[in-house]
């Protein structure tokens, strides 16, 4: 049922929607090459890179921004 005023009382519940299924290319991050600049975290539109630089494939849409903004070529986009 729709609540009065369409109030949603569950902050952040869009997490139910696993946008990883949109992906056609997958970012693969090589931690050996990583220089910890955090560009991939800062610029990810889908909050899919955590502080340890692990990629969350549940939500990553495969846009490729992280790979494009990585100064040390540590991220490669490979076809799913």
């Amino acid at each position: 049922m729709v609540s009065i005023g369409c109030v949603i009382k569950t902050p952040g519940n869009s997490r139910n929607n696993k946008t990883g299924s949109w992906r056609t290319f997958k970012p693969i991050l090589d931690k050996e090459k990583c220089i910890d600049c955090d560009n991939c975290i800062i610029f990810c539109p889908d909050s899919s890179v955590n502080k340890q630089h692990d990629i969350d494939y549940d939500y990553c849409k495969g846009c490729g921004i992280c790979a494009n903004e990585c100064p040390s070529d540590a991220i490669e986009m490979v076809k799913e």
Partner: protein
Amino acid sequence: MDIPDKDLLAPGHRGCAGCGASIAVKLALNALGKNTVAISATGCLEVMTTPYPETSWEVPFIHVAFENSGAVASGVESALRIQGKDDVNVVAFGGDGGTVDIGLQSLSGAMERGHNMLYICYDNEAYMNTGIQRSGATPYGASTTTSPKGTASFGEDKPKKNMPMIMAAHGIPYVATASIAYPEDYVKKVKKAAETKGPAYIHLQQPCTTGWGFPSEKTIEMGRLAVETGSWILYEIDHGNFEITFRPEERRPVKDYLSTQKRFKHLDEEHIEKIQKYVDAECKELGL
């Protein structure tokens, strides 16, 4: 830059792959922190983050009509103030259509009344959510669905409305331009705006992969090109003091920016030359 354990804009939102609007809001919310109420007009941001019964917002969020986010934000700010809750950030987000066209009067009123709030215009230079119609913020020459390139038209025939200077003319304490491609500069301005007593306005350029026509991985690169060519100038006006906050080492020709986007691909040398002259004049005026 401080990286939070958890972003205040949750994933699972329906923004296009590579959407710059979500980067814009994620960075702003992380800078403002949990103690924030957000308001947003209709537009891509609202549509992609709140498909009922889901929301991506981790802070209280109000979706309002297209034309009244300035008015609603002033109401929220007044209600909080009357309750003695002076430490809550009130931030309104509006697209360029919602800000420079349809929401202009309510925003102007809010600024005039001096509410302690921050308004961020995330400018993707057209009405994207409804299918790329031109807005007052669409730049000269851009092809949109209501300013299409073709035999009878070369695209948008008017220069971009200078919204940050319209806000500055209100005499409010803080006005700034920003870009998602310069996150440190942007976040610094958001924090400064939040600390400012009274109204603050940030005009943020946000490249849009779908509306501008470039590959999704180039969202940030496009923002950088805009700044490096002088097509978008980063500055702030803090209590009347104007300052350029980023100077490109050498200004690149605007062609480098225009030629990488589908919306400008059709432009001939004559139009590119005209755009270069616009940009040169603007840079000269602002001292870049």
